[in-house]
């Protein structure tokens, strides 16, 4: 369908245009008729639709009420731009994860991921590049596409492509049943769906997609690691835990621009997965002045964390303030580390962390640290993650395709009471196609083949 047509110029495309890695600044570039309005819809700052052309604007990228990054946005209006279309460039100072996240948000907001060489191609087709360069553009587009195609194929490993194939099979099955009843209403062939019988099937597809998305999160984890925040009052031993991890694992100690907007204080690898220890310096700073951890600040520090190690000392155990913070972390992965077991062996229990994730230890003697690692392994199922299975899902495009497919399926669930069957086939078909794009398969003949191989019809 239209989505696949490489030359459709009325779409707005986007891509990360700086090399991925630990660069200080990444640029995400959008080009097309909706470039300005799409970026504006996720931008907090000046109204980009009203700013003059060729200006740089300061503000924030926000999505679903959440601030993603502090950015500079260049707005360049058609026709005096590289592609001769409206171009917006987002300068983000986040690392790969934030950059990917912004790209993902743009894709969810109406941009299409640029094909390899597409900016150059547009520049050419719009007459921006001299004709003598045509051959070069052609070569570029071909070789880049070929490369990415090969890469995609290489990335597709068994179990996950099988997962996509089986979800598509499920969708096709439901759709074929609907279609056969639409095209052959006089026949008793196929299952005659009512809203009640259709819903469980759609829900099953939804669950399969959700699983896939969870796997995608694992994929992201493999690529970008798990972000760990160490929280707790001063002098309970947070730094000791950090240092002993780092020492033992001989990891990178110098602060580097990392995967989140927070500075990573250090990294170490557990079972092949990177753990990024997020700096909670902000919190400690205030600690120096006031002997108190601000609840609000803790929540903020934990926002980007996949795991929170909350440290208390065995002397004080849980203060009411600790309880309050733990309460606010509900829903997050929290491990409670009770330090300084040489002082007291009192056990504690709390409503907010299960006993299983409460560890007693001593950072001086390294006691309890192995236990802590085990709990992390358990919490993130590290033993079950085989990195080769997840790598391909870790790119923003594929993630966005699966998410979009999921949105279509959820749309069916939400409207199933109000609309007739023919409308659902639109969403089903699109979900099927979106998933097909990941594994490079098309739609049309599948359904016709399914129809005639499965059902018995005709004069």
């Amino acid at each position, binding site marked *: 369908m239209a989505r696949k047509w490489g030359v*459709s110029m009325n779409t707005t495309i986007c891509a990360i245009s700086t090399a991925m890695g630990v660069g200080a600044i990444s640029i995400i570039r959008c080009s097309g008729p909706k470039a300005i309005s799409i970026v504006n819809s996720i931008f907090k700052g000046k109204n980009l639709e009203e700013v003059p052309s060729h200006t740089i604007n300061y503000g924030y990228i926000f999505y679903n009420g959440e601030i993603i990054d502090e950015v500079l946005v260049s707005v360049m209006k058609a026709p005096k731009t590289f592609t001769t279309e409206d171009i917006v460039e987002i300068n983000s100072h986040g690392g790969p994860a934030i950059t990917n996240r912004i790209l993902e948000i743009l894709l969810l907001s109406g941009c299409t991921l640029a094909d390899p060489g597409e900016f150059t191609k547009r520049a050419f087709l719009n007459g921006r590049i001299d*004709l003598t360069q*045509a051959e070069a553009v*052609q070569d570029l*587009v071909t070789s880049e596409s070929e490369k990415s195609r090969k890469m995609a194929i290489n990335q597709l490993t068994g179990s996950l492509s099988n997962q996509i194939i089986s979800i598509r099979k499920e969708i096709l099955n439901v759709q074929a049943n609907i*279609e056969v009843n639409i*095209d052959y209403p006089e026949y008793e062939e196929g299952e005659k769906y009512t809203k009640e019988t259709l819903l469980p099937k759609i829900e099953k597809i939804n669950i399969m997609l959700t699983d896939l998305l969870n796997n995608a999160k694992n994929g992201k984890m493999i690529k970008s690691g798990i972000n760990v925040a160490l929280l707790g009052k001063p002098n309970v031993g947070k730094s000791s835990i950090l240092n002993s991890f780092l020492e033992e694992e001989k990891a990178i100690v110098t602060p580097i621009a990392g995967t989140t907007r927070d500075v990573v204080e250090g990294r170490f690898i557990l079972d092949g997965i990177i753990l990024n220890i997020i700096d909670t310096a902000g919190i400690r700073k205030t600690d120096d002045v006031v002997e108190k951890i601000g609840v609000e600040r803790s929540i903020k520090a934990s926002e980007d964390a996949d795991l929170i190690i909350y440290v208390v000392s065995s002397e004080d155990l849980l203060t009411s303030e600790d309880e309050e913070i733990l309460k606010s972390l509900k829903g997050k992965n929290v491990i409670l580390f009770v330090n300084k077991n040489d002082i007291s062996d009192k056990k504690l229990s709390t409503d907010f962390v299960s006993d299983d994730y409460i560890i007693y230890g001593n950072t001086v003697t390294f006691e309890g640290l192995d236990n802590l690692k085990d709990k992390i392994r358990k919490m993130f199922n590290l033993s079950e993650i085989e990195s080769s299975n997840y790598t391909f899902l870790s790119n923003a495009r594929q993630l966005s395709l699966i998410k979009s497919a999921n949105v279509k399926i959820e749309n069916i669930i939400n409207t199933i009471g109000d609309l*007739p069957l023919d*409308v659902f086939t639109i969403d089903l078909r699109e979900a099927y196609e979106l998933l097909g794009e990941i594994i490079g398969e098309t739609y049309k003949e599948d359904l016709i083949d399914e129809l005639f191989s499965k059902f018995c019809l005709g*004069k």
Partner: protein
Amino acid sequence: MNFDIIVVGGGHAGCEASHAAAKMGFNVALISANKKNIADMPCNPSIGGTAKGIVVREIDALGGLMGKVADKSLIQIKMLNNAKGPAVRSLRAQADKITYPKEMLKELESINNLTIIEAMVEDLIVDGKNIKGVKLANGEVINCKALILTTGTYLKSKILVGDTSKEEGPHGEKRSNHLSDSLRDLGFEIQRLKTGTPQRLDKSSIDFSVLKEENGDDCYWTFSFDNGPFYDKDKQEKCFIVYTNEETHRIIRENLTKSAMYGGYAEGIGPRYCPSIEDKVVRFADKERHQLFLEPESLYYDDIYLQGFSTSMPEDVQERMVHSLKGLENAKILKYAYAIEYDAINPLQLTPSLETKVINNLFTAGQINGTSGYEEAAGQGLIAGINAGLKLQGKDPLILKRNESYIGVLIDDLVTKGTKEPYRLLTSRAEYRLLLRHDNADLRLREYGFNCGLISEEQYQKLNNKIKSIEEVESYLKNNRVTFKTLPEDYLAKLNITLTNGVSIFEFMKRPEVTLEDLLKYNIIDFKNISDEVWEQVIFDIKYEGYIKKEQEEADKLIKMEGKQIPDDIDYDKVKNLASEARQKLKLVKPLTLAQASRISGVNPVDISVLAIYLKKEYNKND
């Protein structure tokens, strides 16, 4: 003799083609071997069905005949998929096999500049790459400027029943022995296709009392936008349902090798969607029963068509098969089922206007192009007729897009993908079916018909009034609001909703519980003289707004791509970097636009990019 346009073959394609060309003012000859067979229905006694019913509406919207004639000859009609949503609704009628051809002939004979000639065409007269006329079996030559071949199944047709085969067309008519050879000599690829038709039974020998009835709808429908119903809804004919059983399946399995298809007596490729009963029993071995329909063929004779039982078994086996069916124990078979094989051209050798790429001004339509079905044939015939006319007028052809019509989907599929089996239109083949509805065929297509001269000034005015009326009502509903205060209390109580903020009536009507009847009843809106057809469009636009928008956006992208033309002198060997499969396919199909190119299997997005860049470089240096 000289004519502007000659149409060879008087089936459903030929009727529409000759009518359209004549309506455009050309001097037209329709050549048919037997005038009695004009608009003949050699297979099922019905017009319409899913997707096909919408095609009939499209033909009518464009100014063709099928809808009008079907209205005059139908003996039962119903709206299929009524509950499944507006996008897939479609009319299906039982058409009287005597009345339909009679009414069609009447229409054709009423046109002064259309001459019907009873003759067999023996050969085509071609000068270089241009069509010049035809040579009849009696040696006579008729000249023309454009020719439309609508020969149906008559090219080297062979009727197969068991191990016997006869070299003839349906009804024992003479087949055309030479035409497909001359087509091959001219450079056409000829393929062999197969289809079949079931038994006809004597009505008085069937025990209807044990069978389930299938009735028409208890209301009035018409295919045509221009006439009212001609039937009495309470006097519609009945159809009946019959089931096969274990015994039927046993007889079929035991005699499988005697079937023409399974015994290896046939070479043609049959359609998957019209399998013979032996196919069904073999392929779906675990099914305990198959559903069959008894359909009356006419009010004027007693043949009952046994839909679903097509077979190429020998006659004695057919007797046993039929008699094994409940209700048909004593049924008398008036005509045995048969399979028919015939020659067709490869539709990849056609342009989307249905002109052949091999010979200029030669058009083909219907089964010769590899399709199946009366409606598919008629739709192509109409387009071929119009385009032959436009070509002679020196105008651009009428090419309907996939987002505009099922006819467009059908022709685009044929000329872009080709077909290896008789092609049947299905709603599943259309990607924008929410746009391609039964109810809006006039809004989609009538203007084209008007521009070609097939739609009268009066019909066109009627369409414009309808469009205006829809716009007025929608604009009123969008610009006027309802609030909690303005709605009558008793209505609010009935709805059982709270309305915190005011909304436009248009938005308000999106709620499933809000009906037009109520709004009118409680005087919330006040419209007089708004027709049901207008309300139908308005309600649809309201309830499906989001989905229409989505499909329209997709369709807009298509339109843009369809605007990117590929010159016919392009040399694909000069386009660097095309994948070799893509190059080969592009050379074969010769797509007219980038959009069409992108639909060819084996042509990938990167090939399209490469092609777009090449086109820009070579052809549009200045834009």
